[in-house]
């Protein structure tokens, strides 16, 4: 009771805009995870590293005097480079996908330290015209709206581009590669090339998200991507569970699916904020996230197994 009384509903309310914005920014990363995990059928662990790489590159470039918008382009490119390395480890050197991602992720830790020269670097919103910042959210209604419009703009434009891209010949080739490599090769598609391409695109988005997030929180940190893959998967899965039925069979179904991934990321951060607000130990947050992801990944499998048993008995 005493604990309940000590909870301040206004504090929760005040934290919501921040959670919402954070969800939007991480939604971009989740779109990257969606590309590899769902379209390419590749569990890519590069993201934990490439997110921080995007952040580190953006922050260092801004500190060096680059326009924060242009810095995001380089964050995207840096992410693509990370994806390229994982792709080559997998396709050219035959290293299993998960291991290829881990190898890149681990090496990026050193790379990121080298980019920043130490484990973290700040970009103060007072000194630089950042694209978005947590500070804008608390400052005034006007700047708060600016944060939302900017991050929503990023999400919508990204969804539109991905929708277009996966409808092109190249996008089809990536989807075929992810669905059935034998079929893809029989139809003249280089599965290796398109695997690398998809990994680059995915990690490019993750890097972009990292660049935005670093600006949002005013610093890049070598650990900022730790557990990112789990957050990305959580967003993908929450999106599917909550909105899957709504998306299926519609015109533009794929666009809705992509939007639901972003919505999944927003829901994730709102739930996490509530967990924090309830004063549940924040040390356990990652454990909660992992459990949520594990449960939702297991549901479809357990469902089919249960159905199979039913049939066997009936």
């Amino acid at each position: 009771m005493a604990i309940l009384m000590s909870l301040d509903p206004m504090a929760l309310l005040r934290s919501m805009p921040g959670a919402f914005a954070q969800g939007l920014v991480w939604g971009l990363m989740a779109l990257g995870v969606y590309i590899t995990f769902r379209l390419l059928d590749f569990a890519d662990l590069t993201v934990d590293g490439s997110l921080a790489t995007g952040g580190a590159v953006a922050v260092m470039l801004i500190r060096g005097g680059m326009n924060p918008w242009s810095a995001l382009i380089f964050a995207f490119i840096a992410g693509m480079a990370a994806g390229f390395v994982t792709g080559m480890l997998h396709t050219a050197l035959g290293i299993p996908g998960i291991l290829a991602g881990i190898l890149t992720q681990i090496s990026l830790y050193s790379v990121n330290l080298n980019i920043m020269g130490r484990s973290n670097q700040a970009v103060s919103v007072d000194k630089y015209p950042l694209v978005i910042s947590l500070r804008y959210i608390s400052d005034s209604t006007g700047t708060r709206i600016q944060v939302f419009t900017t991050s929503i703009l990023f999400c919508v434009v990204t969804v539109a581009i991905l929708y277009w891209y996966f409808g092109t010949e190249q996008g089809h080739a990536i989807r075929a590669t992810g669905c059935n490599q034998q079929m893809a090769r029989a139809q003249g598609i280089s599965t290796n090339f398109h695997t690398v391409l998809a990994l680059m695109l995915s990690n490019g988005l993750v890097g972009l998200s990292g660049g935005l997030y670093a600006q949002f929180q005013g610093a890049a940190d070598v650990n900022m991507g730790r557990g990112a893959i789990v957050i990305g998967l959580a967003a993908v899965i929450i999106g599917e569970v909550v909105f899957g039925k709504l998306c299926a069979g519609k015109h533009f179904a794929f666009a809705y699916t992509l939007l639901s991934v972003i919505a999944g990321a927003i829901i994730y951060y709102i739930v996490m904020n509530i967990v924090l607000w309830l004063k549940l130990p924040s040390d356990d947050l990652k454990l909660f996230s992992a459990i949520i992801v594990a449960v939702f990944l297991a549901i479809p499998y357990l469902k089919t197994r249960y159905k199979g048993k039913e049939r066997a008995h009936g």
Partner: protein
Amino acid sequence: MAEMLKIDNIHKTFHPGTINEKHALNGVCLSLDEGDFVTVIGGNGAGKSTTLNAVAGLWPIDSGKIFIGGDDVTRLSEHKRARYLGRVFQDPMTGTATTMSIEENMAIAARRGESRGLSWGITKKERGEYRRMLATLDLGLEDRLASKVGLLSGGQRQAITLLMAAIKKPRLLLLDEHTAALDPKTAAKVLEISDRIIAENHLTAMMVTHNMKDAIAHGNRLIMMHEGKVILDIRGEEKKKLTVEDLLHQFEKVSGEEFANDKALLS
């Protein structure tokens, strides 16, 4: 008549130097003229699939050469060779991308051998064309262009895979027991569609089958394989007169063994 396929003394050993070593191809030679439709029979492990896979380029062969329509393809990777080939597999799951729609699968096949850029993966004009092609199958698929292939039956998938294989008029069509996983009625239907597609497009084709009657009834040539070699090559009038008993007898004579294949005897 032009030579469309030339398999020149190819060898393939799997897992060389291990206890699993398997000399699967033992000097296969075969030459197909343009428009030839050859059926391929032989016992389990005779090397039929391995021969087709060698032509398709799944892995490098140890020695020998393969020419398709005069081009040396021996060193081309699988996806580069695809431009010359249409393929249908035994497992109906293999030939299509299940999470993609019927029209998307066909559009992918229609771009076989071309570079895939940033233009639309499928155009309006193509849709009309695909609808017309699907209608010829008489399976009611022409109204389901946007359905995911994963929702279709094995027979429907094989029929679509056949259309996809023929869509670019390949120099060579490879059918590896493509009706074996289907029920008899569906198998007969898919076989009929195969015959029609091969005839209409004047394709050169190889069809592996375990069914000796089918092997006799279809195509203008028949080859039998045994222990990684072609041991029998029958064509023209001689093929038309063949019976299952002839084939069994021939097999025993050439191989010095009994044709130990229940499936072939029963069918």
